[in-house]
C-alpha cells in the first residue's frame, strides 16, 4: 500500500465509482437522516424543475473522503472544504481525485474534486491532512 507521507507535489489519489444508483441515494438518505425527496422520488424532483432525482451533495462529498481513509494510521483530515458546482444524476459515473498541492513537515494539502463522465467537476475543494506520526 502506498504511503501518504511520501506523496509529493503533483501526485494524485484517484478512484472511479460504480454508476450512481437510486439505492445508493436511498441508503444515504437513511444513514444521514436527510430525507429530502428530491434525492429519492422522481415526481418530487420533477416538481422542482429537475429532470430526475439528484444525489445529495453530501453523498458525493462523503465518498470523496474515502481517498484518505487508508491513511488514518499516519494522520487525519484536519480541514475539508467543498464548493458544490454541479448536480449528480442516476447512472452518472463519478471519478474522485485528490492532488497534492503542498507538502510540509506537519501537513499535506490536496486539491480535491469529483468529476462526472462528461469531465465536469460536480464539486471542488481542498483537504488538509495533518500528520500525527513522527
Amino acid at each position, binding site marked *: 500500500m502506498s504511503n501518504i507521507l511520501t506523496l509529493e507535489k503533483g501526485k494524485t489519489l484517484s478512484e472511479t465509482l460504480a454508476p450512481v444508483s437510486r439505492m*445508493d441515494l436511498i441508503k*444515504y438518505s437513511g*444513514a444521514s437522516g436527510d430525507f429530502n425527496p428530491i434525492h429519492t422520488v422522481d415526481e418530487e424532483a420533477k416538481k422542482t424543475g429537475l429532470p430526475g432525482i439528484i444525489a445529495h451533495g*453530501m453523498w458525493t462529498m462523503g465518498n470523496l473522503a474515502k481517498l484518505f481513509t487508508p491513511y488514518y494510521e499516519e494522520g*487525519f*483530515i484536519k480541514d475539508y472544504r467543498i*464548493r*458544490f458546482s454541479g448536480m449528480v444524476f442516476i447512472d452518472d459515473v463519478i471519478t474522485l481525485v485528490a492532488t497534492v498541492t503542498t507538502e510540509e513537515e506537519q501537513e499535506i494539502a490536496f486539491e480535491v474534486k469529483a468529476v462526472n463522465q462528461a469531465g465536469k467537476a460536480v464539486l471542488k475543494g481542498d483537504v488538509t491532512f495533518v500528520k500525527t506520526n513522527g
Partner: protein
Amino acid sequence: MYTDVIGKVSGKVKNTVERGLVKRFAQSIGDPHPIFIDEEYGKRSKYGTNIAPPTFPRVFESGTIEELQLPKKGLIHGEQRFHYERPLLVGEDVYVWTEVKDYYEKKGNNGLMGFLSVVKYGEDKDGKLIFKEEAITIITEAVRKAMSV
C-alpha cells in the same frame, strides 16, 4: 431578513457516536473500511477504537435556533466545510450546538442571491472543541420572496 439572526446560537445537545450508525453511514458512502466498522481493527489502531468518517457529523442533532426560519423548499447547498482537532471516536459523547455565523447577499444570474452560513460545533464533555462544521446555503431571491408572502 437573515441579518437579524447573525450570532444567534442554539443550546448544546448531547449526541453519542453510535457504532451501528457509523457502520451504516460508512457503508452508505461506499467506505466500509475496518477503521470505521471492525471493532478489533479499531482496538489495534492508534486511536484505540474505531473512528467516524469526516462527514459523519451530518447525523448529529445540533439544537434549534427559533429565530432562524428557513424555507422548506428551494434551498441550495453551496459550500460545506469541516474542521477537526482530532477524529471522532466511536462510542464517545459529543455536545453539539449551532450558531448563525453570517448572512450576506450578492448579485447573481437569478437576482440577489442570499448566502447563509451556519456553523455547528462539536465539543467533548469538558467543552473542548473536536470539530466545527460550516454549511453555506444559497437562498435565491425567488425563494425568499415566496417565503415572505
